[in-house]
């Protein structure tokens, strides 16, 4: 069922694939804190990725703001235990800037402990693989919207 | 020389609304600590919007806060006249010294400084001196300092050095409030909607608003019939609502966008929320703030279109005022009673009246016997036959036969029950005032009376008692002040043949810590000792507790030895609980199981809920049967105990 694993930024592909296999997760999304998609695994449609990215970025922004208001350090990871699925959301700081990882897993197939265990591994791999020179080009006001949707189109070959 | 502060213009009569909230708050702060907060305070607003009223209110408040404060109020013209008069009389310096020693200077209509160069420099010197000495200056004008034509530059900066605050046109809401307060002051009431109509018209200032009100009052007085909304509109010459004759909104000065926005929203809410709801909510907020319960008003809000709202509110206010009077009065006599919530709830006004009456006569009776222990429900039997007979004699002729009566018995033997029972019997007589309470409560009352220095009031209260019954008198041990009080009270009551009854766990002379003079008085009366309840008593108590139930159960329970009724009832409760838990009927069999546990023992399962398959280190799977369970277990713990 999974829609396979694809990356907008090539360096994320290999760490992502290992993570998907080892942690046995159903859906994974790597994105910038603004919700721009870097790579995904398991999504079949662009619109699902868009909603997941927007909501994931919003949740991350909310918890970071809450941590700031509570005067504490930002949250390391956020786990939501559902009936059949669990969601795990956590940032990884890389030279290319923070990467937010959103993972959805079946409680039958794997467990939060395993997902967290292999997430540590994913984080180290991503830090290793991220291109050193972070050519963070200044996003022009006009094309911010285009930036967001471009990453989707390239993911789904449009 | 200067116009005295008009007493009418105080903060209490000043209606605060969104448009003048800031100015009034600043004014209060200045009045409370003159010279330290905003100095000088410069208030400007269009004419007729309450500047003078506010200025004088500040003066009053400052005087009330610090009576010996010298406060001067004068308009600029008066100041100029006084100055010229002093100069003409060669008293220039005396004039200056007089004003420089003023603690608080209130100068009105400062805008008339225009092209009065000499006066401006005079005022500059005065304000420098006053501020230097930390005295407070409050100035009022119809425009901000910068807009006063050719005002000396230094005066403009000095005037604006403290706080410059403005007052806008009062919004709809405040206008309604002003009208209602003024109508109240003039002791005239209007049909609902009339004042709202007047308030709806955007008058340029409060003075015009008052003018309109006066016209309505005059009209209503002349025709001595309540003016209707329509008539009011005619009198004021406003076109009927809805003909788009919305009077042109006066060009309200837009001091800042937020307060304009605020007053607009207030106006919208004012119009949106029906006027009567606003009035009711306002009353609720006010009285709730003062700690009164406002259920009656809140009920109004819940209805769609309640009847005469104003009458209900004024009725409510009348009750609250009455409550305040009563509470004040009771406070004097009995502070504890004054705290009672009855004085906070207008719905319970008559109850509060009764409490006040009782306290007023100082006849607040001491605590009486509890109705939960009537004599009838006390089980009699051979073991307490004699004692009960004695008690009946005491009840028959209180104070005459055995005074005092002392009931002695182990705890749970029914002493408290009997004490209250006697109390109830005695209380039944005419004009009986029976005090019946635990010694601990008695001690607390003595302490409270000492703290509230109302000991004599407290003594009077108990001396009026026709019978005094104290439970667990042994608790007096070590409390010498209370024993002193009891000793005096004892003698007074005994002399008047008033019956005294006490209970104690053991005979009086064995109660250590009690003064000899108390012990001897207790021993002097009839000491009645209650031993363990006999079978007849036990069966009677059980029957009353269990009602229709298997005779075998009653006999079984009655036959069991019990040191006291309380202990027996505790066992009964255990049986009842067991019956409920297993939802089985109350039977002798069950009682035996619960109380003696004779049933055949349940099989004790050894080991724990396991499959028995143990993957052992020797590899291969061995089932439990062959497994040796007695491990070389350390001395103190057997495996079976591990469950």
């Amino acid at each position, binding site marked *: 069922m999974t829609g396979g694993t694809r990356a907008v930024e090539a360096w994320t592909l290999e760490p992502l694939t290992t993570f998907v296999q080892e942690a046995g997760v159903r859906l994974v999304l790597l994105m910038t804190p603004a919700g721009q998609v870097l790579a995904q695994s398991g999504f079949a449609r662009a619109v699902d990725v868009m909603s997941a990215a927007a909501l994931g970025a919003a949740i991350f922004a909310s918890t970071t703001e809450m941590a700031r208001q509570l005067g504490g350090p930002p949250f390391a990871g956020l786990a939501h235990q559902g009936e059949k699925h669990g969601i795990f959301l956590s940032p990884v700081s890389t030279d290319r800037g923070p990467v937010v990882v959103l993972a959805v897993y079946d409680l039958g197939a794997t467990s939060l*402990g395993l997902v967290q265990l292999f997430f540590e591994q994913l984080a180290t791999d991503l830090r290793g693989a991220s291109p050193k020179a972070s050519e963070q080009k200044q996003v022009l006001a006009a094309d911010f919207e285009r930036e967001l949707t471009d990453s989707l189109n390239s993911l789904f070959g449009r | 020389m200067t116009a005295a502060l008009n007493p009418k213009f105080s903060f209490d009569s000043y209606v605060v609304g969104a448009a003048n909230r800031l100015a009034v708050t600043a004014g209060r702060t200045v009045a409370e600590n003159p010279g330290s907060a905003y100095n000088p305070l410069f208030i400007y607003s269009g004419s007729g919007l309450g500047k003078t009223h506010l200025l004088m209110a500040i003066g009053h408040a400052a005087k009330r806060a610090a009576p010996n404060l010298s406060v001067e109020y004068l308009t600029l013209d008066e100041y100029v006249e006084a100055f010229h008069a002093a100069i003409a009389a060669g008293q220039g310096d005396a004039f200056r010294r007089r004003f420089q020693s003023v603690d608080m200077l209130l100068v009105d209509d400062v805008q008339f400084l225009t092209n009065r160069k000499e006066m401006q420099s005079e005022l500059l010197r005065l304000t420098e001196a006053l501020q230097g000495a930390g005295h407070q200056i409050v100035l009022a004008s119809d425009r901000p300092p910068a807009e006063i034509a050719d005002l000396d530059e230094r005066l403009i900066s000095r005037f604006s050095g403290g706080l410059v605050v403005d007052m806008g046109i009062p919004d709809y809401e405040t206008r309604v409030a002003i009208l209602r307060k003024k109508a109240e002051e003039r002791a005239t009431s209007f049909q609902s909607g009339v004042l709202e109509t007047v308030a709806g018209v955007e008058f340029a200032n409060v003075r015009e608003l008052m003018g309109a009100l006066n016209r309505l009052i005059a009209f209503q007085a002349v025709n001595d019939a309540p003016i209707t909304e329509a008539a009011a509109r005619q009198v004021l010459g406003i076109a009927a609502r809805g003909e788009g004759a919305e009077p042109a909104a006066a060009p309200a000065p837009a001091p800042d966008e937020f307060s304009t926005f605020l007053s607009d929203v207030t106006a919208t809410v004012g119009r949106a929320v029906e006027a009567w709801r606003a009035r009711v909510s306002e009353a609720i907020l006010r009285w709730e703030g003062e700690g009164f319960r406002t259920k009656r008003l809140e009920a109004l809000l819940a209805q769609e279109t309640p009847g005469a709202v104003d009458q209900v509110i004024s009725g409510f206010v009348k009750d609250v005022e009455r409550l305040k009077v009563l509470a004040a009065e009771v406070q004097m006599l009995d502070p504890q009673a004054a705290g009672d919530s009855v004085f906070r709830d207008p719905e319970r006004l008559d109850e509060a009246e009764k409490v006040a009456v009782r306290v007023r006569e100082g006849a607040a009776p001491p605590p009486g016997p509890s109705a939960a222990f009537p004599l009838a429900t006390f089980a009699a039997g051979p073991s307490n036959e004699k004692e009960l007979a004695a008690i009946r004699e005491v009840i028959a002729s209180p104070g005459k036969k055995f005074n005092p009566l002392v009931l002695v018995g182990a705890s749970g033997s029914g002493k408290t029950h009997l004490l209250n029972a006697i109390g109830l019997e005695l209380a039944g007589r005419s004009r009986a005032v029976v005090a019946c309470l635990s010694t601990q409560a008695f001690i607390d009352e003595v302490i409270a009376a000492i703290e509230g220095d109302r000991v004599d009031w407290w003594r009077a209260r108990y001396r009026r008692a026709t019978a005094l019954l104290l439970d667990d008198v042994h608790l007096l041990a070590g409390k010498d002040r209370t024993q002193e009080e009891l000793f005096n009270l004892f003698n007074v009551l005994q002399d008047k043949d008033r019956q005294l009854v006490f209970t104690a766990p053991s005979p009086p002379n064995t109660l250590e810590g009690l003064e000899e003079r108390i012990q001897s008085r207790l021993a002097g009366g009839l000491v009645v000792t209650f031993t363990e309840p006999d079978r007849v008593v036990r069966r009677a108590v059980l029957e009353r507790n269990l009602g229709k139930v298997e005779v075998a159960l009653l006999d079984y329970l009655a036959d069991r030895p019990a040191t006291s009724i309380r202990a027996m009832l505790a066992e009964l409760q255990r049986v009842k609980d067991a019956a409920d838990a297993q939802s089985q009927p109350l039977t002798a069999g069950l009682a035996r199981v619960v109380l003696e546990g004779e049933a055949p023992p349940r099989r004790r399962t050894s080991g724990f809920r396991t499959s028995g398959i*143990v993957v052992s*280190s020797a590899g291969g799977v061995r089932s439990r049967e062959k497994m040796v369970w007695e491990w070389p277990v350390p001395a103190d713990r057997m495996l079976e105990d591990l469950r």
Partner: protein
Amino acid sequence: MSANGYEAALHGVTGVRGVRGAMVVTGSDGLVVAESLMEGIKGTAVAALAASLAARLGRAMDAGGVGSGVFWHLQAERGALLVVPARSGMLIVAVAEPGVNAGLVRLELLRAAESVA
């Protein structure tokens, strides 16, 4: 059961000579509830793996119709892993030297499981 309550439960196990560490792990998601481990033992990894092993073993035992596991003893070249599932679904895990007295560890694990249940 307070956190230090769990820790106290482990004292018995770590007290046995040859035991290098002990942990209380949630059976469902393999998270470490309490641990007292010597240096060098990757607690989170052991916990996550033990839990997923427990899940698989559980399914195997159900298939075999032998009921749920009581005690496992996984002997390895350089040590051993001893686990007792507690009734509440927690796992009491001990990491030990190869020559450890398995019986004693098992007994302490059972006692810890009891106090944690």
